[in-house]
């Protein structure tokens, strides 16, 4: 029996290539976003480790108010190596006429632990400065530039002689103020008030894995708030947080794509069941139970879903290092392809149950009619006579629109799924536009902590959602036409013109799209605020700076795209001679 079910499933896939392709595209896109979410956080792991090794990184880094406190940590059990504490102080430099705060480390000779890894130029010497690489890149300061510092005794000029990275320093401007190295003498000139200095101590441990426990026990030795300790694992997590905004966006889109896939699978399976109504009845007549018939559709969805997940894994894996690329400014080397096989299993574990259950449920609902009913009617009869239907008929709507609405609401499940898919797509678009508007609204010259690739990723995923929803709309239009060809023939026989037949389909889908896209505006703004809150912890509604004409573009573009999606099939249907249409089965 299983062999028979599999055979019927594969026959279904082969016969309906358009629907099969759409399912693969949908699951592939959902898988790509899930894989991307999982991969993006790990692509910088190896380059960070290389940087840590090159810098002879600190297993524990500590920031104290006094130099003496650092010795307490260096003398704790488990410490295998310690270095002289480095004084740190904040100063102000002028870059392009703007004041920029910078954290200066005053080096007294070459440090032994947490050594700045030189990227460009030379090491620091008296009267010069070395900038942390991401700070130099973000502010556009090349080696050789002369920087002016404001000091109590007046302006002080320092030449930039090099750039360097440190495994403990996240990317500027996420870590703001940025970091720079000067000699201790220079630091004393720039920030003579030593009361404002802090001291950074670095130690290495016999067993690096005990760093978190070491940090915990060290904290207990000092009054609260006087010391800040960071294990090497914390440093790495902080550096890899670069990928957080990408992860939040990719997770949000993964959810949206999964939601849309439920809607689209329900529509496609509904279409299949409707198209094969008589065939399904015949399968039941020869002994298949409704559960077995539904299983055929579930196997089909699972097979297509598995193919989609395998295909989606590739772009997810390849895109992750590109989207994590900004982290390269703080690392030795760029983020690399991780391709963790577990990630494909996670994607499959999330997507497959969703599509299998939605396929099974959609098919199960449609296999309840009796065999005889199905064979006689040949099609799934729509509901009629509802109060809503009567209200539509009694309304002052033009007749083509009234007929289209009656048909749409006679197949309520499909209408609801369609509205749902359009709302989700519109929501994603509004959220992306809001994000872009917020980026555009930043004062000119202000460096963004959002990776430049983020809006590009969001717009790409919007495009994927739009293509999927648009394809679903075409599928729904084709399905509606297929189901109504005979009705169209009858309507034309009693006086509907071809244009009225076309508009009965196009106007209704466009109206539905308009309503759905209007709903998507507030939902999209809410999603944007939620994403912002998840990524940054802030939820101020003033963050919404989306121009009203951008928002208005959504309920114009979506109904327009919908009209295009449904008009071509509708026009083709309207051209079928009524005599042929009424004979259609």
């Amino acid at each position: 029996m299983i062999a028979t079910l599999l055979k019927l499933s594969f026959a279904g896939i082969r016969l309906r290539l358009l629907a099969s392709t759409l399912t693969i595209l949908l699951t592939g896109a959902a898988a790509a976003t899930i894989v991307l979410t999982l991969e993006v956080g790990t692509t910088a792991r190896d380059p960070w480790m290389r940087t840590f090794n090159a810098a002879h990184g600190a297993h524990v880094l500590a920031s104290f108010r006094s130099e003496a406190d650092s010795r307490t940590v260096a003398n704790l059990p488990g410490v295998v190596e310690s270095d002289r504490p480095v004084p740190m102080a904040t100063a102000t430099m002028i870059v392009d006429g703007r004041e920029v705060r910078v954290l200066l480390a005053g080096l007294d000779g070459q440090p032994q632990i947490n050594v700045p890894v030189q990227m460009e130029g030379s090491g620091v010497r008296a009267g010069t400065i070395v900038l942390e690489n991401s700070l130099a890149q973000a502010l556009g300061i090349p080696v050789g530039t002369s920087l002016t510092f404001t000091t109590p005794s007046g302006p002080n000029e320092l030449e930039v002689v090099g750039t360097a990275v440190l495994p403990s320093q996240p990317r500027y401007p996420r870590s703001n103020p940025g970091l720079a190295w000067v000699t201790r003498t220079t630091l004393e000139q720039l920030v003579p008030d030593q009361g404002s200095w802090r001291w950074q101590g670095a130690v290495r441990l016999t067993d690096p894995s005990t760093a978190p426990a070491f940090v915990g026990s060290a904290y207990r030795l000092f009054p609260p708030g006087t010391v800040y300790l960071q294990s090497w694992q914390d440093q790495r997590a902080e550096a890899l947080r670069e990928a957080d905004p990408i992860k939040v966006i990719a997770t949000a889109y993964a959810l949206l794509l999964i939601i849309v896939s439920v809607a689209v699978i329900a529509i496609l399976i509904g279409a299949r069941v409707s198209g094969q109504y008589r065939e399904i009845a015949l399968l039941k007549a020869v002994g298949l139970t409704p559960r077995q018939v539904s299983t055929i559709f579930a196997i089909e969805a699972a097979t297509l879903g598995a193919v989609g997940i395998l295909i989606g894994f590739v772009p997810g894996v390849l895109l992750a290092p590109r989207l994590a690329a900004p982290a390269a400014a703080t690392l030795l080397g760029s983020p690399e392809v991780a391709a963790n096989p577990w990630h494909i299993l996670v994607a499959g574990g999330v997507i497959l149950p969703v599509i299998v259950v939605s396929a099974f449920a959609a098919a199960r609902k449609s296999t309840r009619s009796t065999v005889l009913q199905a064979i006689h009617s040949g099609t799934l009869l729509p509901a009629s006579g509802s109060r809503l239907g009567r209200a539509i008929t009694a309304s002052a709507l033009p007749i083509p629109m009234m007929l289209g609405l009656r048909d749409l609401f006679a197949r309520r499940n499909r209408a609801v799924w369609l509205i749902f898919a359009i709302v989700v797509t519109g929501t994603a678009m509004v959220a992306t536009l809001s994000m872009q508007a917020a980026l555009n609204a930043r004062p000119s010259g202000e460096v963004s902590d959002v990776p430049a690739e983020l809006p590009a990723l969001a717009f790409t995923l919007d495009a994927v959602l739009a293509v999927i929803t648009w394809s679903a709309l075409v599928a729904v239009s084709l399905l509606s036409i297929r189901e109504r060809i005979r009705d169209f023939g009858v309507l034309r026989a009693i006086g509907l013109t071809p244009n009225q037949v076309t508009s009965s389909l196009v106007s209704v889908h466009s109206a539905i799209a308009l309503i759905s896209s209007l709903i998507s505006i507030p939902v999209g703004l809410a999603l944007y605020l939620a994403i912002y809150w998840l990524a940054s912890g802030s939820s101020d509604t003033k963050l919404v700076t989306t121009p009203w004409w951008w928002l208005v573009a959504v309920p114009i573009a979506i109904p327009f795209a919908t009209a295009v999606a449904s008009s071509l099939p509708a026009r083709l249907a309207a051209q079928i001679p009524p005599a042929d249409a009424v004979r259609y089965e």
Partner: protein
Amino acid sequence: MTNVIEARGISKDYGTGASQVLALHAVNLAVERGAFVAIMGPSGCGKSTLLNLLAGLDRPTAGEVWLDGERIDELSEADLARLRRRKVGFVFQSFNLIPTLSAGENVELPLRLAGRRRRDARRTADRLLADLGIENRRNTAPAVLSGGEQQRVALARALANAPDIVFADEPTGNLDSVAAREVLGLLRSVRERGQTLLVVTHDARVAAAADRVVTLRDGQVSTETTLGAVRQVAQLLEVGQRS
């Protein structure tokens, strides 16, 4: 009497090349206003094709079709639709009611398409349904109506705009004998109202009620029998015998 329908040498082919099928070949037919014409013939002889061409539901491959003095085979699809709205009612063998509309709404539809106000359309639909004895089925979905009831609704829909010509394709073909008798009675009443009636049928009882029977064979008119005169003579003989 004037001809309300005229077919002048109409032919209809389906398919191309080796698979081409000639459904009708050079058919000439004229139907006078107010006549009841039955078209008969074996299956596949082209009866329904002829009816579809005369009603403007399809276009001939060759020849001309005239309806109420207007050549319709050259009209655009939109003009044809408007013409059908005004002048033609069509009854299908398989009823073809719109499944998403109730019985009453199916009857209202051509009235509203013709520009009648909602209330007016509703009143007319109610009257038609009452005339056909199914006023209590107004809000019922087509799927739950019996075959006879569905065909009555289809007839009410065809008669809604009081068209000059009513075409019916096997109107009793899917009905039991009781329902078929009822529909035949209704067709007779159409004819009595002076509307022209063209019916494709296999049913001898329907043909017997017609003024003229046109028989097709292999896409051509094989015989034409005028029954009206025969029936009048028979009626006179019957009256004479009684007296």
